[in-house]
């Protein structure tokens, strides 16, 4: 199979042999594919700058077996890729895709969602909002979309009530803390449904909810990129403690 210049993102690259690169690529029509870029690490190779995560590119490749071979890569005219502290978020969403998507499973709608998240991260929009919306749409694309408009009994969600969001079931009116569930307000569920989680309380509750859902999908596998946030947070609280 030969694929001509096709919109892609590099999720991860790894040195392979002396001068080659192994790429984990997220393509629009072909899902996640593994490619080898021969000579991708040589000094003269200008492709190297393009084969970085977080940058939209067009890639041609051929694939006979599991691992394909990169033929060419060209830049895509978009904004500059995310930089600075926001690269941690790129690590995070890339790790989610690598751990949750099967190879060769096409998700064009998820590609557009990813594209939007990366574009958002390159701009000035709130990182928390971008990540929560990405997580919500990722769950939808994987077939685990959240029930946000009505509770398990089919009653519409009321903004002033609190709910227990139960894994694989949905929201039930809050009475006492339950196992495998997280307490969220109706306001948060509705804000997520409208994709407008702007308020601090909504964002915090949405984070807990997504953490539970994604943790469930990962089946106990840890997310190393989350450790990075934790590490930064711990050094900052240490600093605050010293003061």
């Amino acid at each position, binding site marked *: 199979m030969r694929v001509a210049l096709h919109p892609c993102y590099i999720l991860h690259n790894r040195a392979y042999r002396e001068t080659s690169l192994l790429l984990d690529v997220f393509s629009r029509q072909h899902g996640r594919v593994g490619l080898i870029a021969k000579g991708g690490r040589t000094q003269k190779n200008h492709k190297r700058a393009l084969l970085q995560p977080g940058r939209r590119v067009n890639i041609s490749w051929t694939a006979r077996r599991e691992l394909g071979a990169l033929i060419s890569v060209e830049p895509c005219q978009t904004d500059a890729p995310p930089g600075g502290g926001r690269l941690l978020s790129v690590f995070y969403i890339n790790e989610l895709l690598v751990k949750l998507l099967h190879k060769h499973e096409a998700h064009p709608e998820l590609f557009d969602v990813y594209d939007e998240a990366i574009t958002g991260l390159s701009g000035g929009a709130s990182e928390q909002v971008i990540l929560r919306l990405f997580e919500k749409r990722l769950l939808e694309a994987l077939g685990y979309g959240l029930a946000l408009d009505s509770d398990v009994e089919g009653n519409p969600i009321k903004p002033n009530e609190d709910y227990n969001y139960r894994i694989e079931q949905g929201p039930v009116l809050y009475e006492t803390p339950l196992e495998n569930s997280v307490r969220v307000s109706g306001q948060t569920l509705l804000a997520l449904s409208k994709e407008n989680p702007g308020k601090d309380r909504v964002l915090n509750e949405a984070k807990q909810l997504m953490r539970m859902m994604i943790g469930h999908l990962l089946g106990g596998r840890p997310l190393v990129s989350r450790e*990075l946030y934790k590490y930064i947070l711990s050094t900052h609280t240490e600093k605050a403690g010293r003061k």
Partner: protein
Amino acid sequence: MSESSRLSTLIQALCCLPGIGKKSAQRITYHLLQRDRAGAKYLSTALDEAMDNIGSCRRCRNFSEADLCDLCLSHKRDKSLLCIVESPADVYAMEEAGFNGRYFVLMGHLSPLDGIGPRELGLDKLEEYLADGDLSELILATNSTMEGEATAHFINDIVQKYQIRVTRIAHGVPLGGELEYIDSNTLSHALAGRREIIK
């Protein structure tokens, strides 16, 4: 034609070298056996000695035989400058470039998908270093890749509490480079980092 088992073990062992495949390993093996047995003996003892005695420096994590490496012990070096690099090969490159401070070697870069986090990079050691050193500047010389960049920002974030000046090496047009052939991203970095011509 079957090769003796020692011969094939040696060929297989040589394959662990970077860039050496089966064919090259075979060529090297025959060369050593036919023409340079003394050289091969010398190589094997040197390898043995090196593997037994080279560890890493307690302070900068670079390869060292002693507890502290020569660069950390030297009085001639500027103690107020600390340069953070990804690998021992980068230390060599910085030395060639004439840097005269000290180093801290991460032995990699942040890469969650490979399971490499702050602990693997010895950032707790770096914090110890910063806590007891009298540094005036920390130079982040990680690679200009997405991971290198993320590592630099990460370190910048966690060392804020020490109130040290943190700088990142410049990136842009290479010497002898022609703008026409430089990718747009590099050029936009170069443009963002432009500065006045020194008179």
